[in-house]
């Protein structure tokens, strides 16, 4: 070797002789009996809180399931509510159940595309930066707004003559309460969940994936449509499900904007539109009315309907879980 610096660099590195690792200050899996008293108290407290939380949740679910199973009868799923003073004569909750699906459908039908659009804009364009910040904080504010406030705004909005077609008008007064009105305002409840989840999904896509699409001559629009949105689909669906879960669980907007009639009261003669323009109820308002403190006071029916409501929401959470897991499966390194 002529070059001293190079030959020096090529000297074989002698491996360090194997040595015993330094003793750990505290065995990682050892018993906590060697800990300081404050640490042990802290650990005990953390355990206690965790167990308490589980116990409370379990108590709610078990209570609801026991009460629900006691009072839920299959006929209730396909019988409409009837006016009666006895619990055996007051029918089931077919219309409220369908009503739940209708408002969820309308709300996500609006919040879905709008939310994904907002998310795409925030994630892929976001210019000018000031507008992006404004949109961001608007969505956050919407997420934090109590639904009863949104409901009040909805009443004002849908009682205006411009939106008279959404409900029925009698003697020049717009009633302002209908499935359309409730669904539209409920979409504001779902929107933040769709936006934040879809946005998270889009931002989780590495930048080189976008560039790979541009690098084969694709436009930004084509990249968004054909690469980014399909890649973000699991997150978008998670957002939909979270949104639907909150729409289904909302009561204030339903009570104030759906008219809170136990069965569908259609408006006009067009079959589907009639129902959408008319009033009705959902499982939440049905439970609200039939609860022991409610107007109708049919507690057995309230428990049965609450169980169905709980089952629907838990089912949605299950879907979210499955999609969340699948979205983690196929990713770029």
């Amino acid at each position, binding site marked *: 070797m002529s*070059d001293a*610096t*190079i030959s020096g*660099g*090529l000297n*074989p590195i002698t491996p360090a002789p194997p040595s015993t690792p330094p003793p750990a200050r505290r065995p990682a899996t050892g018993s906590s009996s060697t800990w300081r008293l404050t640490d042990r108290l802290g650990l005990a407290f953390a355990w206690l809180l965790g167990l308490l939380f589980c116990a409370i949740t379990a108590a709610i679910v078990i209570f609801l399931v026991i009460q629900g199973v006691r009072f839920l009868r299959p006929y209730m799923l396909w019988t409409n509510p009837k006016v009666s003073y006895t619990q055996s004569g007051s029918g089931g909750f077919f219309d409220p159940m369908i009503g739940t699906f209708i408002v969820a459908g309308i709300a996500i039908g609006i919040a879905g595309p709008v939310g994904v659009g907002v998310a795409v804009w925030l994630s892929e364009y976001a210019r000018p930066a000031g507008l992006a910040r404004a949109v961001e904080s608007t969505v956050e504010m919407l997420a934090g707004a109590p639904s009863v406030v949104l409901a009040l705004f909805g009443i004002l909005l849908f009682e205006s003559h411009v939106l008279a077609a959404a409900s029925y008008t009698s003697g020049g007064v717009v009633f302002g309460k209908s499935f359309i009105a409730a669904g539209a305002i409920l979409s504001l409840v779902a929107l933040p969940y769709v936006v934040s989840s879809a946005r998270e999904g889009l931002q989780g896509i*590495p930048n*080189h*994936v976008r*560039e*790979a*699409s*541009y*690098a*084969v*001559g*694709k*436009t930004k629009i*084509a990249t968004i449509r*054909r*690469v980014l949105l*399909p*890649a973000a689909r699991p997150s978008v669906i998670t957002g939909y499900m979270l949104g639907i879960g909150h729409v289904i669980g909302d009561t204030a907007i339903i009570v104030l904007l759906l008219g809170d009639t136990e069965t569908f009261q259609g408006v006009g003669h067009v079959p589907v539109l009639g129902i959408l323009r008319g009033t009705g109820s959902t499982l939440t308002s049905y439970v609200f009315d039939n609860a022991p403190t409610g107007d109708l006071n049919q507690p057995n029916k309230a428990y049965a309907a609450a169980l169905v409501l709980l089952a629907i929401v838990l089912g949605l959470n299950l879907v979210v879980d499955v999609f969340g897991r699948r979205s983690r499966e*196929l*990713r*770029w*390194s």
Partner: protein
Amino acid sequence: MELNRPPRVRRLSPAAPVTARPPRTEAPTLVNGNGAAAADSHGAGATSSFVGARRPPRSTVPTIDRMQVEQVSIAYASKLAVKEVSLPIRQGEVLALIGPSGCGKTTLLRSLNRLTELTKTASLTGRIALDGTDITTLEPTALRRRVTMVFQQPNPFPMSVFDNVAYVLREQAKRRPRRDSLRGEVETALARAGLLDEVADSLDHPALRLSGGQQQRLCIARALAAQPEVLLLDEPCSALDPRSTAVIEDLVVKLREQVAIVIVTHNLQQAYRIADHVGFMYLGELVEYASATTLFGSPRQQRTKDYVSGAFG
């Protein structure tokens, strides 16, 4: 023919005879701590221990000038990343850009299909011509179909193997072509990337289920599907295992006759193994541009000599 090299396993076996031209992958024996085989093949003026390892022969087809980079400087805001670089890019040979991290080689590569324009602060002076046409006069999308790119991380799109390639072919047509009418072109592209045999039965499987090396070859197939004149490779093997790397290196050498290839690499041995010409960049400057044997065997510049001999970088 060089293209039909013995399989990797044989080359790694200790029984492989050390001939006057040792098998190409004798070079990695250095990594194993056994420099004897490589040292035997050293020429007197060799600066890199792997010089003399077997390289593919020069392409038999005549080279065609595809791109001309003339006095190109690229800056990010006020920071100059590439300084007055000029070099030719030819079909029929592989051009490797080497240099330490941050020396501007990736920036230069990305400027060739105007991907640098995606960075808001980037600005370019000088001229880059593709087949005699200034690339700034072309539509970016049209340019990027003629100068396609493969990235460091394998990044197949979240769709089937078939659709990954078909994606490139669709949407340039006025009406969306039917799947069956694309099949031939998709299979041709996959075959050119040497992937067709492995995925022929799983064209409908998600591309992200393929192995890393297969994903990267799918990305090459995707880049080839546009029928480009120039193929840019940005460290295409740095996320792959040695076996997949060897497959892709063979592929690159094979492809050089159909398309001009520019490859950015950190791996000097790789540049030596596959490149015909090498550009060494340092702090944004093109320090030396020469044939691979010259640049690694007898570099003219001291900085090149220091870099390829491992004194820095």
